[in-house]
């Protein structure tokens, strides 16, 4: 134990020294400088990271992904899966013999992260901030960790251009609607997204208000608060069969008293696309904006997504 405690910092310094010689150092979510030797075998933990790696043309360097890496579909078919990002097994990750682990902030459990740290495998926890800047930073950090800053700059530029177009589109919204994001509707209990959630940010990126601003995160919302929040639209995710269904929302006694039910306004979108905060986020926000404001369609038709058309793979 004592030997371990004394040795670990030495090993960490030694590892960092080698990496700095190779020239790549990144600053991660834990406020640490992580040195990277050789990003040849990467384990990607978090759907957005996998998406970014594919967009940058690094699929051959991916040694494994986690179960939230649902896009592109090839990721889950072709790559070994280390399980759910919050329930990682250190042995499962190390068994893939990675030279770099890129994990979204929030990956865990803490013990597994500590073991990975101790194993001298560079582990970069990528900060998760649900904002335009957070998205661009995420792309640049992944690119830098892979030693491919020009490719990351290319992708970040395309995403930034999409976000700018989106901002212009938002500017044309005359009367923002109130949207409530429903994560689940189970036995009459409604779990809705509050502040500091991906759903909250995507709603404002699409030029709307989150009707629930009284709490942080995803929580069971009080039925009367639903009536008081007066959502114009209910938004949810469609993931095969476990989606929230429009009819269940309209029939719910609280939603029945809101404009959303009287206008039959229910939108569902694919989960990772809508909430993933990866390269496709601007496109997802634009899709949502068009569903919320069909009048914007003529303007939107003239825009082309830079991210979906650009090739940043070399």
């Amino acid at each position: 134990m004592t030997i371990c405690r004394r040795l670990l910092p030495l090993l960490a310094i030694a590892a960092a020294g080698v990496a700095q010689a190779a020239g790549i150092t990144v600053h991660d979510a834990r406020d640490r400088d992580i040195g990277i030797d050789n990003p040849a075998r990467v384990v990607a933990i978090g759907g957005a990271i996998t998406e970014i790696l594919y967009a940058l043309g690094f699929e051959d360097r991916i040694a494994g992904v986690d179960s939230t890496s649902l896009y592109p579909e090839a990721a889950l078919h072709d790559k070994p899966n280390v399980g759910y990002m919050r329930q990682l097994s250190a042995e499962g990750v190390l068994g893939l013999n990675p030279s770099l682990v890129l994990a979204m902030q929030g990956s865990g459990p803490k013990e597994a992260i500590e073991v990975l740290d101790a194993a001298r495998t560079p582990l970069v926890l990528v900060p998760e901030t649900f904002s335009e800047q957070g998205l661009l930073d995420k792309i640049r950090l992944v690119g830098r960790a892979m030693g491919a800053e020009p490719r990351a700059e290319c992708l970040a530029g395309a995403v930034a251009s999409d976000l700018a177009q989106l901002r212009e589109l938002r500017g044309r919204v005359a009367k923002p609607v109130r949207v409530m994001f429903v994560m689940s509707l189970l036995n009459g209990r409604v779990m809705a997204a509050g502040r500091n959630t991906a759903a909250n940010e995507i709603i404002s990126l699409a030029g709307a208000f989150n009707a629930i601003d009284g709490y942080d995160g995803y929580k069971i919302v009080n039925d009367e608060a639903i009536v008081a929040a007066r959502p114009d639209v209910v938004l949810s995710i469609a993931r095969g069969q476990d989606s929230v269904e429009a009819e269940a929302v309209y029939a719910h006694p609280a939603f029945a008293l809101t404009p959303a039910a009287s206008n039959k306004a229910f939108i569902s979108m694919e989960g990772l696309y809508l909430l993933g905060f990866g390269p496709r986020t601007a496109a997802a926000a634009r899709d949502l904006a068009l569903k919320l404001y069909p009048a914007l369609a003529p303007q939107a038709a003239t825009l082309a997504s830079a991210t979906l058309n650009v090739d940043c793979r070399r």
Partner: protein
Amino acid sequence: MSVVADGVRRPARSLRPAGPLIVIGLPILLAGAVTVALTMGAAGIPLGRLPAALGLSADQADPLTARDQLVLWSIRIPRIAAAAMVGGLLAVSGAVMQGLFRNPLADPALVGVSSGGAFAAAAAIVFTDSRIGNSLYFMQNELLPLAAFAGSLATTMILYAIASRAGRTSIAIFLLAGLAIAAIANAGIGLLVFVADDRQLRDITFWLLGSLSGATWPKAATLAPVLAVALVACLSVARGLDVLVLGEAEAFHSGVNVERLKRISIVLVSAMTGVAVSVCGVVGFVGIVVPHLLRLAIGPAHRLLLPASALLGAILMTGADTLARTIVAPAEMPIGILTAAIGAPFFLIILLRQRGLAGL
């Protein structure tokens, strides 16, 4: 049959001085708790506007009145009704179980009836999302309460089968097997938590903490006949439970069909708990605290204890639910947190008292 002739203390004589006060006071307290519950909520309806919002006064000019009426009648009132009835069911099932086990600390949660229901509900949450459960998905909203009810009943039946032999049921084995079944059910819940995704995990957690969110008229309408039938049935075993305090052999010699009494009580407790769990998830400590408090005030006679438990359970649950849906509005506090926060200290006090009585 005269109770005195059996040589058993007449229940009425065990009325403590607080008895009459409690008998009159509880209905008044319940009316008060319901009134407070009616006026509090995320959509504010102060006492002054309440008559109009209930549709009782002629003053319908206020434009808010229409909205208030909808909120009250379609959301708040069914929920208050459900809270009160769930509280009554939990408290009465606790009282019956304590009488049956002759143990003031018995509670349906202790013998795994609630855990079995919770395990089945968690399984319903996880498997309706999976390939196996897709065919059942269309009935997900009905499936969850049904699963919870079936899980509670199945747990009791397994326990009963384990504890019964040659027509006799050992209450001690029932209790011990219940502890083991609760542990197994909790392991099963742990496994489901492990395989659940983020959204299912949140749903399971909220289910385990209990909540009356989503209590609608149909659910309140299901609870009402169950509570009525259960109360009447419980009163029919009240005298038997009184006599059982003396011991099984003594009760048998006093003319009580002890095996029948045990069977009926076990079925009643599991049905009441199962229905309560199916409506609001797992809510602990109401079943322990309420009967115990009342026994201190009005004595152990079940003919009085059972209806008083129903009333006090309803009062506590109405109050706890009012807090649950207002203190963190627009979100909801799971009611299980509140009942445990209030109930667990009581449980400790009861334990300390018993330690004192035992001379330790």
